[in-house]
């Protein structure tokens, strides 16, 4: 065999190369298609084409002929294609159903001022509103019922709350472990600790969730004596366990890729191992460690199962001992029952698009920082 310099690729190698290229291309295409799909389903929210006003003036079925096809099509919420294909009897039945739906509205909602508003307008999605039966203007996420309330602020706060608790717990632990493993541990210890932490990423998040739900929640409540057993704090800690391996392995990579000359120079000048690790290696690897934290953020904000199992009340509160509802939980729990193509469905997709942008940005920042860091260490600037 031996090395054949300048040897022309054999057909099978050529094929393999093209195949691998196609696979990577399809991955990019996949991401693009998913984003396009999510964005397309969410667009009607951005253009204000959804309407949730409970009370609408129905058109009596006998007056069908008095209205133009375009009016009827908008009134029945159909696509032009569906409307064109429809028979006279179908149209008639649909008109009757519209009238019946209005007649079915319970008496106590007929005089409700909220029954006339379209709750999918941006001011109701983002700002507090004085709803009937509430003492003061509030942010409410209650998407199912007669008056559908879609305020996304409690979900954003819930997501941030859980994610930040998770990171505050995971970053110091993971970075500490990375420093220990890369700088201080004896080779024997390193060979055990490193794979053990990385094995943690292989634990399915649903298993972490069950563990948190049944055991961690009770233990933490016994220690901290808070009132709500399942809250953002428990979810955050459990989330931390899912994020630790991600941060650990990237931070450990960054720390070990600091040139040995740095360490040797520091030690030769009389610094202790501890001083070397803290004052020489960690500052040199800081961009890499920061990138690890940012990628951990991306992992945490997109995590679904753990948060879904541990806490899910959409409370408008910054307290870590209150419950929280994250965006991922909301999508996972509510998508199955949202009427296909309805306002609730559209808003869930809008939330999905939001999440996609957030994780995309955090991953991109993390990648850029890692790249910079590698170039800097290699002296390329």
């Amino acid at each position, binding site marked *: 065999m031996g090395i054949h310099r300048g040897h022309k690729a054999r057909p099978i190698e050529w094929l393999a190369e093209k195949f691998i290229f196609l696979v990577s291309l399809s991955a990019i295409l996949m991401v693009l298609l998913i984003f396009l799909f999510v964005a397309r389903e969410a667009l009607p929210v951005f253009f204000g084409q959804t309407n949730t006003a409970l009370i609408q003036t129905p058109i009596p079925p006998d007056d069908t002929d008095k209205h133009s096809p375009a009016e009827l099509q908008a009134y029945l919420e159909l696509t032009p294609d569906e409307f064109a294909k*429809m028979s006279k009897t179908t149209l008639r039945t*649909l008109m009757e159903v519209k009238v019946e739906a209005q007649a079915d509205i319970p008496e106590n909602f007929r005089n409700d001022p909220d029954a006339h508003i379209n709750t999918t307008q941006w001011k109701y999605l983002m700002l507090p509103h004085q709803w009937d039966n509430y003492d003061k203007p509030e942010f409410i996420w209650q998407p*199912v019922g007669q008056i559908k309330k879609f305020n996304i602020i409690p979900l954003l706060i819930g997501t941030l709350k859980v994610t930040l608790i998770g990171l505050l717990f995971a970053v110091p632990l993971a970075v500490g472990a990375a420093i220990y493993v890369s700088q201080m541990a004896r080779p024997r210890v390193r060979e055990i600790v490193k794979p053990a932490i990385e094995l943690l990423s292989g634990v399915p998040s649903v298993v972490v969730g069950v563990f948190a739900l049944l055991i961690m929640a009770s233990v933490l409540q016994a220690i901290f004596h808070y009132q*709500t057993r*399942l809250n953002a704090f428990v979810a955050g800690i459990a989330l931390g366990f899912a994020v630790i391996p991600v941060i650990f392995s990237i931070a450990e990579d960054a720390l070990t890729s600091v040139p040995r000359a740095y360490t040797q120079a520091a030690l030769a000048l009389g610094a202790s191992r501890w001083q070397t690790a803290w004052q020489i290696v960690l500052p040199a690897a800081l961009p890499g460690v920061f990138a690890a934290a940012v990628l951990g953020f991306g992992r945490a904000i997109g995590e679904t199962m753990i948060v879904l199992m541990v806490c899910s009340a959409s409370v408008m509160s910054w307290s870590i001992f209150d419950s929280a509802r994250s965006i991922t939980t909301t999508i996972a729990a509510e998508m199955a*029952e949202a*009427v296909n193509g309805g306002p609730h469905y559209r808003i869930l997709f809008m939330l999905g698009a939001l999440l996609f942008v957030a994780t995309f940005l955090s991953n991109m920042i993390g990648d850029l920082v890692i790249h910079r860091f590698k170039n800097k260490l290699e002296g390329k600037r």
Partner: protein
Amino acid sequence: MKKVITLLAAATLAANTFAGTITVKGSDTLVILAQKWAEVYMGQHADTKIQVSGGGSGIGFAALQNQTTDLCDASRKIKAAELQKCITVFGGARPTEYKVALDGLSVYVNPANPLKELTVEQVGDIFTGKIKNWKEVGGEDAPISVYSRENSSGTYEFFKEHILKGKDFAATAQTMPGTAAIVQAVVKDKNSIGYGGAAYGGGSKLLAIKKNASSPAIEPTEENVMNGTYPIWRHLYVYVNPAQDKGEIGAYLSWIRSDDGQKYVKDIGYYPLPKNLRSN
């Protein structure tokens, strides 16, 4: 090689011409009962195949619109938007609604809670967050922790419409992914309250419910649900495209609601339909 291809072709042909497959999709509340029915019915009719899957009532209605399922199980009535879609697809016909079982819903509390009964109005006020402490309803002086279902659940919607009278659940109500999760949380949390099917309540205490302040407190037993004295109950439904409600599917639907089919309802923890609702 040729032999294999002919064999394969024959197999696909056989699968295509095999008409006796009924697909059932929908409510998770009904899925165990639907599986039981399917199992027994397939035992009696060897040439009929029934495929049952869950996912939720909304998933079932979506499948009914897309005509990827024959029957749709539902723990709530069809919504206006879903009805419109179905009518558009079915060419003007409304989907047929069959009531297939009764479900009594219980209010669970921790076994250590000394309280025995509540009125329907008190239950509503606790879940909307108007009543926050057990002492307001004659219990101990302790804050109430409220457990509810996810808003995708038919049980959640039923409770919101009929017990909370359309008002919102308290924002602090913790939503759990299933009835079993609620029961588990209620058993672990001393000051808790939750709701769900009576059959799932093992380990927790089921409260007796009073229709109003002056009426007697009624236990959620089979007898009380079936004679209508227990105030919190609902129907469970099966929806079908009327054009398909004939032949094998029609026979299966009428068997479900016959005395023979209704016999199995109680095994799953729901209650059979009263006689006057069975055949229509």
